[in-house]
């Protein structure tokens, strides 16, 4: 058995557990994969959240990736971070930076177990704010300044790759270098509000190739192993080149629902709830959905393609929300096999995004570019 085969069969506990603490957010990013905005009244209470932490400590989930929404909006956010650290659960949290003031930065700098990821989606205000909202670039940079002033050390700058920012790769690298930060680039998925903006924002074929070569030259840039579909272009990118959904990865949403991965907040990929009898552990180990995902998967329409072993058919979430069968090609398949299917599915009924917590006002782009 190879390591990949071990991963496909599933682990005793996830390696990468994403936990979204709240659907509340002060931003309304046009690609938000959880369609966040308003808090959900059913969100886990502090006591329930502590019980989840106790449980993942028992299961030896070594660290969690906390997100949202904007997780720092929760009044008990800092308490829950401390609770994780006190229970041997390391924390990496994603934030838009709006709550990282000088005092918070100093407190964070004191912990060895807390890692921070600040999101920006452009190397300048115009590009970033187009996606994340006016003023959000300045806010993120101010937070980075506070972390640097507090000698926090190496934080992460996280960027979702779009058609408008792939040309800024070197600028992102420079920005990270300037702050002594680690750059993390991830794939744009057509999930959440991203389903509506994907067609306009996802990278072009040429941009994907440029990104692939740029990443091959910079193995120290993190990717969350999210570009494995690009490994079909030749040499494999570093990291786990397969879909980890329900095998090594899962998502716990603010109301405790457990999904196969952070990009499929949809009933079809909901395995259970941490409030159910047996809690998270039972969902992870015994849910039918996850058991199915750990079975050998058919290569389907990609079986005859020479690159299948390299790309493994790509991203399940990207296929699902663009209306492509799960055993079909990735919508951004580098051999172009996905494009036709995306076009064919465009007129048909696409799966609706699950729980939508967007604020009532429709999301608008900040003008045309």
């Amino acid at each position: 058995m190879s390591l990949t085969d071990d991963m496909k069969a599933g682990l005793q506990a996830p390696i990468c557990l994403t936990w979204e603490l709240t659907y509340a957010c002060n931003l309304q990013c046009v690609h938000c994969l959880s369609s966040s905005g308003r808090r959900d009244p059913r969100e886990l209470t502090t006591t329930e959240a502590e019980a989840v932490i106790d449980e993942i400590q028992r299961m030896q989930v070594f660290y969690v990736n906390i997100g949202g929404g904007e997780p720092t909006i929760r009044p008990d956010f800092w308490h829950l971070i401390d609770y994780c650290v006190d229970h041997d659960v390391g924390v990496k949290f994603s934030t838009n930076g709006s709550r990282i003031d000088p005092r918070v930065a100093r407190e964070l700098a004191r912990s060895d177990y807390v890692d921070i990821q600040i999101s920006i989606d452009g190397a300048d205000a115009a590009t970033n704010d187009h996606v994340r909202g006016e003023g959000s670039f300045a806010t993120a940079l101010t937070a980075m300044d506070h972390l640097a002033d507090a000698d926090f050390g190496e934080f992460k700058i996280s960027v979702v790759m779009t058609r408008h920012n792939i040309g800024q790769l070197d600028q992102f690298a420079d920005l990270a270098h300037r702050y002594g930060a680690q750059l993390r680039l991830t794939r744009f998925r057509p999930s959440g509000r991203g389903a509506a903006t994907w067609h306009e924002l996802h990278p072009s074929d040429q941009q994907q190739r440029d990104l692939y070569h740029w990443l091959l030259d910079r193995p120290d840039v993190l990717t969350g192993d999210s570009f494995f579909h690009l490994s079909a272009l030749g040499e494999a990118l570093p990291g786990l080149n397969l879909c980890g959904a329900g095998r090594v990865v899962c998502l716990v949403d603010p109301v405790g629902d457990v999904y196969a991965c952070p990009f499929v907040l949809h009933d079809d990929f909901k395995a259970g709830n941490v409030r159910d009898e047996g809690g998270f552990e039972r969902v992870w180990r015994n849910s039918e959905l996850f058991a199915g995902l750990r079975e050998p998967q058919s290569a389907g329409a990609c079986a005859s393609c020479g690159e299948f072993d390299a790309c493994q058919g790509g991203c399940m979430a990207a296929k699902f929300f663009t209306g492509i069968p799960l055993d079909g090609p990735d919508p951004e398949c580098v051999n172009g096999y996905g494009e036709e299917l995306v076009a064919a599915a465009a007129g048909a009924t696409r799966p609706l995004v699950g729980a939508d917590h967007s604020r009532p006002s429709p999301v608008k782009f900040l003008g045309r570019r």
Partner: protein
Amino acid sequence: MGCVGSTEPSMKFDIDRAYRLNDRVALRPEPFGALAYHYGNRRLNFLRAHDLVTVIESLAEHETVRSAFDAAGIAGPRRPAFEKALASLAESDFLVAT
């Protein structure tokens, strides 16, 4: 955060020395062996053999790695692979010389 790098000259792994698992490393049993996680440098290692896990867990009880190998019956052609695995774990601070 702390810097993962070190300015000290890296010590070569020596099978005739004593090593033990770093206190900041946790092992999680898995069907293929174990996952090792280092809370300090946040690195993850896949220990993909059950007797490799046995050897690592027993290191603290032995004066030398060689003696831990002998006790676990790691001999012949398997030994170089185990030595290499342990050397790499020592290199990344999962094991510390005592």
